[in-house]
């Protein structure tokens, strides 16, 4: 099966942001994503239980849409929240599945 290059956006952030991050994805026209619970340690300390949990949110989209989302994170969340995000190159089949809908 032929594969084409796409961009994987991965965000690890405090759980309290989940609904807002999902809203940002929807606003960018992205319909699909995966959320998994995550734990670990970072600049804002250990995150577990009553100290607040993390989520790992992943979505595959175009580089432009992923860049736009990173800008959104920079504008709203990077300064004050426990959050890291990165882009990686991936290859996918069925590329039409990952095209953002323009609204």
């Amino acid at each position: 099966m032929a594969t084409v290059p796409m961009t994987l956006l991965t965000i690890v952030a405090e759980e309290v942001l989940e609904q807002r991050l999902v809203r940002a994805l929807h606003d960018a026209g992205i319909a699909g994503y995966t959320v998994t619970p995550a734990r670990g340690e970072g600049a804002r300390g250990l995150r577990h239980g009553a100290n607040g949990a993390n989520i790992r949110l992943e979505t595959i989209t175009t580089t432009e849409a992923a860049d736009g989302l990173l800008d959104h994170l920079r504008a709203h969340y990077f300064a004050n929240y426990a959050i890291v995000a990165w882009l990686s190159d991936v290859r996918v089949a069925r590329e039409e599945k990952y095209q953002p809908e323009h609204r």
Partner: protein
Amino acid sequence: MLARARRRHPITFRSVHALDIFDLARVNLTSPAVLAFVLGALSVAIRSDLRLPEAVYQFLSIYLLFAVGLKGGVALSAASPGEVLGPAFAAIMLSAAIPLAAYPTVRLLGRLRIQDAASIAAHYGSVSVVTYTAAAAYLARIGEPVEAFLPALLALMEMPGIIVALVIAQWRLGTSSGLGEAVRETMTGRSVVLLGGGLIIGLLAGTDGVGPVRPLFVDLFAGVLVLFLLDLGISAAQRARDVLRGGRFLVAFGITAPLVFGTVGAFTGTLVGLSPGGATVLATLSASASYIAAPAAVRIALPEANPGLSLAAALAITFPFNLVVGIPVYHQVAQWLHRLPFLAG
């Protein structure tokens, strides 16, 4: 049942001799719940690999919130509106008033930023479900009767303090963003939905309806609480570094605030006609600081506030203080206030 509990614990409850206080302290310190909290904290100190999975923590907190709501709802279905109204009004007023006292104290004495002072005020204005259940368990152990509708007061005290603290922050910061979202976040957050929802379900189902689920939500409750406290001990110990960073003021506030708010709560409870046990619970609610509802709301409304500070104060200082020292003290204070003729008619 109460009479039987009293016979089993040969302690005099109507006097405040020094011996009684030590006996009561022993009863409190040797409860499995308190010891599990200590074990959790110790496990962090010795770098044990003990840790409850995140999903288990979530499950335990859901269970506790729902079970407390359910029990309160059943009790409410049997209570007359007249007896609940006064204490309910007092509970809302207390929750709203606490941030008004906490904010200037933290801001002026602690010299913390507006965001941090308001965040701490929100945590102390709201309540801790586990501290409430620990107080209820303590009173049950020593055979002190309480009003059955007290979980309704707990539910009423979740929100007002958070809202007042966030309004103070907006006023001082001159901004107007985030409050609506934070209120919505708190209203739809799991603690209000589960406590409030449990109350309504208990109210509708009544004693008979809840009968079949009693084994899960009533009989197992004390055991589940022990597991939850084990995990809270871990979380609290992980905050130790933040306590050190917060400095002497944070420690002093984390101990003084519950004593002051607890005494005010005991006074108010006695004034509105609660029993010594009921006044002890209202005192404990006033003295407790939230670590479920408040952190989530504050993260949304005051992102610049350092969550480490308020969680360290609420979870690593005030919570263990209330658990070990506070609850028995509020009980003594409530009993003492009850003997004042002009307070309790």
